[in-house]
């Protein structure tokens, strides 16, 4: 090897340096931003044959508007061309109240309910997923039911149009909770969320994703799904 390098060799070394730097930056970026690896296809173990039926629990307010906003929230996930859809059983009566924190009996796997009750400050909505006991750990568990509870302590905005300055919109957090009901409850920044300080949670309508740790309540933003909300869901079912 010569003691001196040609300009081509200089150039080669520089290219190597740049590739090394870029590769590391990409690896770091990917590890901080693993959009697509949050959860497996928990419903039906990847062989889901139809939609997931759900109803309101009878203590949920009966107003048409508030119930329509919940249906609209489910509809955001139904419009993604996936086998998994949340199908409202409108022809059936509401479920009689049952404890949000308890899983329904395994012989009633379709008892998926939207509850109304205290969630606990500062949370305003919560989802809970029940698994078959024999299904194994979090990553492979098969779900047999989901429950969602919206906070009864809040004076919700239930209009179809955009919420205003002092409004606390119910549709945005409900859309978020249905996202958990797709099976997304582990990973990410915790509980399957995008971290609030990630770029996908930046403060703008275009950037802020519904599955961030918090939702905007006086904007339209989180009523709809953004790219990575869809990406993570896409292909699971």
């Amino acid at each position, binding site marked *: 090897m010569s*003691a*001196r*390098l040609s300009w081509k*060799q*200089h150039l080669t*070394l*520089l290219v*190597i*340096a*740049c590739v*090394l*730097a870029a*590769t*590391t*930056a990409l690896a*770091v970026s990917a590890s*901080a931003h693993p959009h697509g690896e949050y959860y497996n296809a928990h419903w039906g173990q990847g062989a889901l044959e139809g939609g997931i039926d759900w109803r309101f629990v009878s203590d949920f307010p009966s107003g048409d508007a508030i119930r329509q906003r919940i249906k609209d929230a489910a509809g955001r996930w139904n419009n993604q061309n996936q086998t998994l859809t949340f199908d409202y059983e409108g022809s059936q009566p509401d479920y009689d109240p049952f404890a949000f924190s308890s899983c329904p009996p395994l012989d009633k796997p379709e008892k998926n309910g939207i509850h109304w009750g205290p*969630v*606990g*400050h*500062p*949370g*305003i*909505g*919560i*989802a809970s997923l029940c698994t078959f006991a024999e299904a194994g750990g979090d990553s492979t568990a098969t779900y047999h039911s989901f429950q969602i509870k919206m906070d009864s302590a809040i004076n919700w905005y239930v209009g179809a149009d955009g919420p205003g*300055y002092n409004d*606390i919109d119910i549709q945005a*957090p409900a859309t*978020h*909770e249905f996202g958990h009901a797709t099976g997304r409850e582990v990973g*990410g*920044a*915790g*509980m399957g969320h995008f971290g*609030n*300080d990630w770029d996908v949670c930046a*403060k703008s309508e275009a950037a802020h994703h519904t599955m961030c*740790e*918090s*939702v*905007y*309540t*006086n*904007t339209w933003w989180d009523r709809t799904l953004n790219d990575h909300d869809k990406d993570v869901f896409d292909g699971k079912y």
Partner: protein
Amino acid sequence: MSRRGVVVVAAAAAVLAAVPAVALLQSAPESGRRGFRSTNRTVAFRTTPVSTSETRFRRVPGLDDVLIQNRGVSTARFSGDFSGGPVDIRIIRLPNNVLLPGDAHFAPTAESSSFSYDFLDPRRKGGIDCRRYAVSWRSPTGAEVTLNHGSLIVDYHFDNEDRDGLTTACVD
């Protein structure tokens, strides 16, 4: 270019490649102080015994998901009554950030079975934050240790509105 030049370029490449990774490492300060106006307190507690002989840190059931919404730093106080072997206690901000000043160690005896320890989350973030805290524990010797009862208190400054008048809410 001389061989020394080759070495310099190679070293520069390595440094350049390492910079993003190093930037992500958060080292704890040797010392420091933080001040904030606390407006809210959230308490979690458990009154029934739970035991572990795990030598790896695990979350304590019932003290493992305290949600707050705030801006700036926050503090957490763990208190517990123990029996059995020694125990290491830490508070984590989910998913895996260990609060300052670090792990607390306690060896219960017949005369001294309770202890309390304060932790600091120094995170200073410009925007509004949703944070989840959990008490995590382990048996450093593998001997069984029992938490007879305990609590986690988190103090913080609640905030949900930014400068543009946009409000956010934490969701589980």
